[in-house]
Structure formats: structure tokens, C-alpha cells
């Protein structure tokens, strides 16, 4: 790999790591707050998978960046503007319907994304994808089931799910947007073509919600900026918790 391509691959790995870290943290906030014990376990298990995924991506990114960079310096020593996760991952966990709706929409996306990343010419990214996709299949099985139950359950569950979809909808286009970095890496056979994932994603999502009483929102508003470090006001609060120990006691180990 040329130096430029190595650096671009590092940035790409860090993006994917940031996505996983931030979503993993949001899911972990349910620990001891789940609606019942089994759900508490499930949400934290999924969170754990995402933290593991973050470690693999960030660890690889750090290795490519070299020097003193490690998965920990990436996770604990960068500020908001340096985080490149997609905005949908940082939105507050909301109620259970919001958490599960976001998770389901992301699980359907992750399945397609990881399937494509398995074919990356970068062997490490392909290996991470092969590992992660097995977990995503399990996540999807459960999150899809919850869409059916909430969407076809009580009046309240349906209303909350409908509201969650309305609140999330404008954050979805960012999942399918390519920027210069990803185009360059796509041309080199390393990155995934996000635009190509949109049609199959829509088919899968429509098929699921067709079995429920909720209606998919119309496309309209959209927000983006995560990849360039322009975040919602929520990320700073999340990082203040995630990074607290390293900020208060720099370099602390135990």
C-alpha cells in the first residue's frame, strides 16, 4: 500500500471503530435499566459485541497510524470534533422503542455492509467483517422480532415505535452516503459501496414493517456531518462519561 492509501485505510478503520464504540456505549447505558432481566442481558450483550468490534477496528486503525497511537488513545483522548461516527449512533437511547428501532435499522444495514466488507481487498478489514457479521445475524434476529412485537402490539407500543421511526428517519441517509475518502478506498477495492446498500436495505425494512401497523415515514429532512466531525450536542455528553477516568487521571491503568 502507498502511504496515502495506508492513511486513508486507517481513517476508514477509525470511522468504523467510532461507529461501533459510540453505539456500544449507548447500548451499555441500558445496563441495569432494561425493562426486564432478559432484555437487560440482551442489550448489554449486544453492547459488548459492539465494544469488541470497536476494539478490532480502532486497534487496526491505530496499528496503521503507528507511533504512540493505540485503541485506547483513539477512544479516550480525542475530542468531539475528532470523532467520525455517523450521527445516528450518538443519539440518546430514548425509550425502549427508540433503542430497538434504531438497532433494527442499523442491524439491517450492518448485515449488508459487513457482507460487502468481507470482500475487501484489505485482509484485516475482511477478517473483522467475517467475525462481526455472525454477531450481527443474532442481533438482527432479535431486533426484527421486537419491531413485529412493538409494531403489532398495544396502542402505546405502536405509537412509541411510530414516533421513534419519525425521529430517526432523517439520520438514515448518512448511512448510504459516500465521501471522497470512501470513494478513493472503494476504487482501491478496500471500502464498501454504501450507495449500493440502500435499495436492498429498503426492501428488507419495508418487508418487516409491512407485517406491522406502523407506517414508514416519508423521506424529507436529513442531517449529516458525523464523518467530518460535526456532531449533535449529544456526543459531548456521551464522551464526558466514556472518557471521564482518562480525563481525570491521564494514563491511569488498572
Amino acid at each position: 500500500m502507498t502511504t496515502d492509501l495506508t492513511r486513508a485505510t486507517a481513517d476508514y478503520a477509525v470511522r468504523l471503530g467510532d461507529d461501533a464504540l459510540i453505539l456500544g456505549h449507548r447500548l451499555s447505558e441500558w445496563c441495569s435499566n432494561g425493562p426486564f432481566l432478559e432484555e437487560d442481558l440482551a442489550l448489554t450483550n449486544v453492547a459488548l459485541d459492539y465494544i469488541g468490534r470497536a476494539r478490532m477496528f480502532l486497534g487496526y486503525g491505530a496499528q496503521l497510524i503507528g507511533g504512540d497511537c493505540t485503541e485506547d488513545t483513539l477512544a479516550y483522548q480525542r475530542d468531539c470534533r475528532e470523532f467520525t461516527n455517523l450521527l445516528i449512533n450518538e443519539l440518546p437511547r430514548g425509550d425502549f422503542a427508540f433503542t430497538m428501532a434504531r438497532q433494527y435499522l442499523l442491524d439491517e444495514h450492518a448485515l449488508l455492509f459487513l457482507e460487502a466488507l468481507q470482500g475487501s481487498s484489505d485482509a484485516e478489514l475482511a477478517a473483522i467483517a467475517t467475525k462481526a457479521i455472525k454477531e450481527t445475524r443474532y442481533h438482527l434476529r432479535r431486533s426484527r422480532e421486537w419491531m413485529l412485537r412493538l409494531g403489532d402490539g398495544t396502542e402505546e407500543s405502536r405509537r412509541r415505535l411510530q414516533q421513534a421511526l419519525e425521529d430517526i428517519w432523517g439520520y438514515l441517509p448518512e448511512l448510504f452516503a459516500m465521501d471522497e475518502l470512501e470513494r478513493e478506498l472503494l476504487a482501491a477495492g478496500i471500502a464498501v459501496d454504501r450507495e449500493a446498500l440502500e435499495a436492498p436495505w429498503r426492501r428488507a425494512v419495508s418487508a418487516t414493517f409491512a407485517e406491522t401497523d406502523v407506517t414508514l415515514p416519508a423521506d424529507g429532512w436529513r442531517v449529516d456531518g458525523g464523518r467530518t466531525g460535526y456532531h449533535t450536542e449529544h456526543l459531548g455528553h456521551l464522551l464526558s462519561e466514556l472518557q471521564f477516568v482518562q480525563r481525570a487521571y491521564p494514563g491511569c491503568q488498572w
Partner: protein
Amino acid sequence: MPVVNAVAASDRIPLLPVEELERRRRRQHSACPELWRLLDAVKDPEIPVISIWELGVLQNIERDGDTVEVTITPTYSGCPAMDVIREEIGQALEEGGYPHHRIQTRLSPAWSSTWMDEEARAKLEAYGIAAPVSEAGRAAPACPHCGSDRVQAVSEFGSTACKALYQCLDCHEPFDYFKSF
């Protein structure tokens, strides 16, 4: 990819996934069989009846001068047991008289529950954890306590990343199911 079929365990033709065949060959043809035996003492910290070899986590052991190189593969991405396993491998090697060692983690090929052999599966069952069944075959595991097929899934996720929660409808005992992965 894995070729475990859908019939009952007793009728199963023992076909091995290619990655597992290669792993066993690495052990059979190893220049340092004593090290493999030494690490048989390292168990999964969450399922202390099966060793990291039986679980499929231990991938290779080689010697480079006086340094022992151990390769392991994680079961689940975020499995916290991996750090403990790494420490225990180091400790076992040091106690066995091998102070110089390197433990590396390899992601590919991705770990699969099909790498566990019949003996490991039997140990799981005896410990009260239902062994993985083929995704394509039977929909649910049998109860490890009474053997009944009448079971229900309580949650896709259990006490650890590798397990799901089930309950037997006959003996009513809840049990862990080691997920097919």
C-alpha cells in the same frame, strides 16, 4: 464452510470443517506436543469443564528459539474471557518452565462453534449447558437436564456472549444454550 448436518448426534457422520481439520493437524504434527498438553490445563474461565483446545480457541503453538508463540482466536468480538485466557496461558507457560512467550490473536478464520468435537459437546451437556445445534436443522436444543425436546427460548442472549437462555417445558428447569455460531 461448516458441514455439521441436521440429524441426531448419534447418527451424525463426523464431517469436520476444513479450518478445524487444519487446526487438529497442526497439533498432531507439532514439533512441541508437550506444550499442547501443558495448555490443555487452561480452561474456558466461564465454562471451566472445557479447555481452550476443546473450545477451538487455541489455534497454534510454535517455538522460535526459546520463545513460545501461541496463537488464539476469539469466540465473540467483545468476549471478556479472552483477556483472562491470555493471562492464564502466560501463567501456565511460566509455571511449566517457559518464561519467554508471545500470545497473538488471530481473527481469521472466524471461530465457529462447529469446531467443538463430540467429547467437548458431551462435557457441555453434563455441565448443564445445551450444546449448539445446527441452525439449518433442529430449531431448538434438547434440555440438558431431562433430554426433553419441548423447550422454549427465553432470550437470544444469556449470561455470556456465547449463550442463549432456554427453559424446558417438561422439567421446567431453565438452562443455558451454547449458541450455534
